[in-house]
Every structure is written in C-alpha cells, then in structure tokens.
C-alpha cells in the first residue's frame, strides 16, 4: 500500500513523541486500543490550569504508520486548544488531513478515542482545579 506524503512525514518525523508523568497537575492520559488488535495509542494532554488551554501534548503509539501519523497529528492539533475545542476534533478531520484509505480509517477512530480518553481523564482529575482558577 502506498502511503500519503503526510503519513510518511509524520512517520519519519513524528511530532511530540514522549510521556508526561501521569500525576503532574493538568495532565490527562488516554490509553486506547489493544495489543492483539495491533494498535495501542497513549495520548496525553497537559492543560494550563490557569488559562484552561492545552499547552502541550504527547503520544506513544504501537501500530502501523497510519496509526502513528494519526496520533502524531492529533497532538499537533491539540496544542493551544481549550478542552472544549479539543473535544470537537473528529476522526474524519484526521482522515481528510492524512488522506487515509478506507482500510486505515480505524486508525483515525482510535486517535479520536485517545483524545476523548485523555480529556475525560483530565476532567476527572483536574477540572475542579481549573474551575477554581476560572472563578478567581
């Protein structure tokens, strides 16, 4: 299968590979997929508890080139967004940007799941802290 130029670029130069310590204030972690399915994504956001903006994002992915590219792209898009804006990222946006073929659409779905999981983990752990910041 031939990969699109963008997938190849993200594969060769993945953005934001790495990890945050899970209990750092403002960090939300999503771990989705399953090893036996051949795809696991870990996606983390770091929200500035003062501004409510996602100031950094990191990922690690076990999966094909399209899975790596989808999660790499997701981290790029997350930076600078509010949590609510981040929740609006759709898998179809990723499909269009990376020109994923039908057989690889599940990679984009997984990336959307990873974003949602990271956001919900963040909300569970830190949303009250952020709300406190907002009310100041």
């Amino acid at each position: 299968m031939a990969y699109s130029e963008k997938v190849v670029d993200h594969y060769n130069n993945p953005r934001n590979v790495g990890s945050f310590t899970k209990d750092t204030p403002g960090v939300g972690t999503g771990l989705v997929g399953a090893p036996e399915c051949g795809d696991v994504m870990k996606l983390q956001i770091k929200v500035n508890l003062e501004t409510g903006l996602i100031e950094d994002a990191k990922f690690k992915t076990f999966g094909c080139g399209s899975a790596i590219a989808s999660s790499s792209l997701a981290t790029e898009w997350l930076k600078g967004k509010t949590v609510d804006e981040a929740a609006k990222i759709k898998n179809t946006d990723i499909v269009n940007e990376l020109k994923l073929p039908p057989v690889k659409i599940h990679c984009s779905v997984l990336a959307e799941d990873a974003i949602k999981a990271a956001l919900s983990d963040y909300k569970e752990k830190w949303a009250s802290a952020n709300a406190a910041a907002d009310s100041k």
Partner: protein
Amino acid sequence: MALKFPIFMDAQSTTPVDPRVVDAMLPYFTEKFGHPASRNHPFGWEAEAAVDAARGQIAKLIGARDPKELVFTSGGTESINLAIKGVAEMYREKGTHIVTTVIEQRAGLDVCRRLERQGFEVSYVPVQPDGLVDVEAIRKALTDKTILISVMFANNEIGTIQDVAAVGRLAKEKGILFHTDATQSLGKIPVDVEGMGIDLLSCTSHLIYGPKGVGALYVRRKAPRVRLAPLLDGGGHERGMRSGTLPVPLVVGFGRAAELCGEAMPEERTRLAGLRDRLQDAILSKVDEAFLNGHPERRLPHNLNISFAYVEGESLLMGLNKETALSSGSACTSSTLEPSYVIAALGASAELAHSSIRFSLHRFNTAEEIDYVAKRTIEVVTRLRDMSPLYELAKEGVDIKSIQWKAE
C-alpha cells in the same frame, strides 16, 4: 561492492528470473513459436520437444520416475486447486473427508473451505509451537472416509520443513492419497516424490528464478495411479488433466530454472543458510525480546522470520521499505489487517503475530546486503520501541496482559 537499492529480501513472494533462464526462453517467443499439440508439422514437433525436455528437467529435480507425471499449470495456486479439487471430485464415491493443516497456503485452505461448502468434511490439524505437524495427529484425524492428506512441504512464512516422508509412509500405510504443496521447497531443498511417498506435488516456476505464470502438478502414474477430475474442459491436453495451449516459453524457462536449481542446490543451500544465520545472529544478538518463529533447525535455508515484541510489523516495514523489500506475514495477506494466521497458529500471542517480519533470501543476495539490512532493522526497531507505549509499560515492569484492553 557498493550496495544497490532497494535490496530485495522478499524471495518467498517471488524471485528475479535468472538471466540464463531468459536466454533459454527467448527463441520460443519468435522463431520457435509452434503449438506443442500440433502433431503434423515441424513447428509443433519442435515445441513439443521443448516442452518434454522441460518436463524432464523438473521430473529430475523432484525424483519423478516418468516426466509424463508432470502436468503444467498456470502456477502454484492452480496446481493446488487441481490436486485437491481434482481428487475430491474423482474419489467422491470413495469418501468425502480430507485432512490438512492449519498453516497451509491460502490456496490450500480456501479450496478446502469451498469443498466443505460442497459437503466434504475437512480436518485441519494444528501445528506445534515450532511449526511442525505431529504425524500422529494426522493419523488420529484419519477416518474410513478420508481420501486425501494434504500437507505443505515447507511453510511460506516460517520456513518450517515438515516430515514429509513420515506423512508419505502414513498415507501409504492407510491407502490414502498424499498431496504436498512444495511451492516454497522446490529447488531449495531435496524433494523426492519416490523416496517420500508423495502422490501429488504442487510447485511453481517464479519462486525458483523462473518466469511467472507457469507451475506444475506432479501426478503419480504408478503405485497408485492417481486420477483427477480436471478444472478446465477443453482439448484434453496434459493427459486430459489440464486443457489449454501450453505457454511454451514459460514452460521452457521453468525447465531451465529447475535444472539450474538442481545443479546449484548443494552449494546454494549452504551459502544461503550461512547468510541467513549471519542476519539472524546480527539481529538477535542486538535486539532484546526478538523471537525466532518456526523450527530452529528444520527450516528452509533462505527463510528467517522474527517477531519483534512491542513493534507492529507494518510500521517496521514502513521504516525499511524505501531501501529494503521485506514482508510482514505473507504477501497474500498483507492487504488485510489480520495478523499472520501462521504465527498465530504457533500459539504466539496475537500481539507477536502482529510483530512478525519475514526476511527471505535469494541467489543474488550478498553479505554486504545482509549486514546493511541487519543494521537498518535494528535501528528502526529501536526507534519504534522508543515510541511504543507497550515497550514503555514493559520497561516500567507492567505486565501488558494484566491491563484491561478495550478491543475495538
């Protein structure tokens, strides 16, 4: 010598045609273009003589008593179809049960699935963790309705070589026909239809440095005489088993390729096994949690199949495929997302089945190529592990199996 890119190490998917084979073929496109079934003029006689010579060359390579026992087909897939369907239809009165293995090539498995839909019963014998089929397990699967045992000679993904002679003895003892898919073994390791008790043998030209589009099925004529229902109706060529005008240039090429493989086998086998071992040692000595798939000794000299834990196979190939042609699973299945059913059949975890890479060498590979591919493989595995959440978890001491994964 300077390396030339891309390096081809996917020789179990296909091989380049040997220039000596091309030379043998060329006259049969132009001046020697006759139809081998034209019995009444020199053009036909010349073509028939060329086809018979090729039959002889292939017969010699597989130890067949009589070149007439070879039926030319379009390739391995057709040979396997003709063997299994041909026996099933011809011997249906006698029985409707077939015994095969879970690691056969797709053609073998799919033919059996079709026959099941047509009322046949098929037993799929499992393999041991090293890829070997226990002959006693085959014996246990037999019933008084069994008309065919079909076991591949050596596996296309992991290279494990079955104890074909033992299966042959069992088949003989029970009076059941024995078919073996030798597409990956022909010309690489000794194949002996007489000594191994093989009644039907499928093979193909393009894996032995011959042209694509031609294969053969060995059909035993004596003790027992095997009869087959043809797949195609027509002029009754090839002893009525395969109608259709023979592609004479391809057949000539196949014959010459077989002859060259026979001549080169003792030296080539040793040389390729040496290169393969060099590749294996280079990789396994540098990469932790990399596992050899298949039997450590009983395997094809040109095959190496390794699972790299925590790294997905397709992403590994993506990092290598600009400069090196390799395969993840078999070429037939790589358009799907399913992990290798062969690796899965060994009892490996599905995750390791997703992580397998096949290196398959050929006549023209060099030691420099081996060293380069080993070095690049190690680099890419290392890079992908640095971005693998599973590797990170494993390094933190988390048992990956203890996590509740949510499968899609």
